[in-house]
């Protein structure tokens, strides 16, 4: 199917750009990013710094792979999983009424927006991730079938 190929390219370019954009500020400001993770009140204290050290690089690598279209099954699995975690974390804090800085694209607390908007936006991103996951899954299965027959 031709449209599926086009959709995969568009979606992976979008998500790839998104992840790279999200990673840059965090890579430059690890302490501020750790503070944001702390404010989410989800990870235990012992895990906060490790997450702040590794997560931005995971986002960057992921973004580059998505842009390049390499390692797609793995990249999109991690991407969708991350988006799912972010979405759950936002939803969880929305539900318990904790108003936090999203920290999604910037480590500055001046980032404007409400919890509701963040959550809505993240739902759209998660939907994009899942759609790409399904498309890649279908195409790759077909390719593997061709390779092995």
């Amino acid at each position, binding site marked *: 199917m031709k449209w599926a190929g086009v959709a995969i390219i568009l979606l992976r370019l979008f998500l790839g750009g998104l992840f790279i954009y999200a990673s840059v500020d965090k890579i430059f400001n*690890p302490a501020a990013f750790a503070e944001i993770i702390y*404010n989410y009140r989800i990870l235990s204290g012992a895990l906060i710094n490790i997450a*702040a050290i590794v997560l931005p*690089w*995971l986002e960057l690598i992921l973004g580059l792979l998505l842009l390049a279209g390499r390692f797609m*099954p793995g990249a999109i*699995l991690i991407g969708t999983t991350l988006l799912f975690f972010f979405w759950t974390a936002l939803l969880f804090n929305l539900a318990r009424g904790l108003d936090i800085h999203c920290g999604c694209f910037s480590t500055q607390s001046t980032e404007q927006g409400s919890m509701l908007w963040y959550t809505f936006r993240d739902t759209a991103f998660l939907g994009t991730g899942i759609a790409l996951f399904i498309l890649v899954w279908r195409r*790759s*299965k077909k390719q593997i079938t061709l390779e092995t027959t």
Partner: protein
Amino acid sequence: MPAGKKFLLRMIGQTAAIVLAAVILGLTVNHVRPDGLSLVGDWSPEARITSAAGDSLIIPFEEAKGQHDSGRALFLDARSEVWFEMGHIKGAKNLPPNQIDRLFPQVLGDTPKDRLIVAYCDGEHCELSRDLALALLERGFTKVRVLVNGWTLWREAGLPVEEKRP
């Protein structure tokens, strides 16, 4: 091998490789950079509530109580107005840190810079009192302290409060 299974194995292998790469890259860069983080941070209130110079800002409960009794300290409630209206430490003024630019003149405009200020909010992990204390230090106040979990401790101890009757 069926295509689905092969795809799954490929996906898991790639996932492991990408995560491993991110861990190695992240740890290496963190190790090299001058502003790298320690791998396990201390996120307890004692470690977090410090001035820019690293001195602890926490005031022990008994000391805060004494300063309230003597009237030497000005208590500042850092929570939002709604919570303040529902109940606060007797004599406290309301100054949420995100409103400081707007409210500063009327709340602290004629307070001497060396007056003892005790900022509080509610809960062990509430950040508002810390944010407020740091903002006040930046504005030149010299004796700013934070009473951790202030509102809950104060009420549980049966100390003077002003509460709205329902």
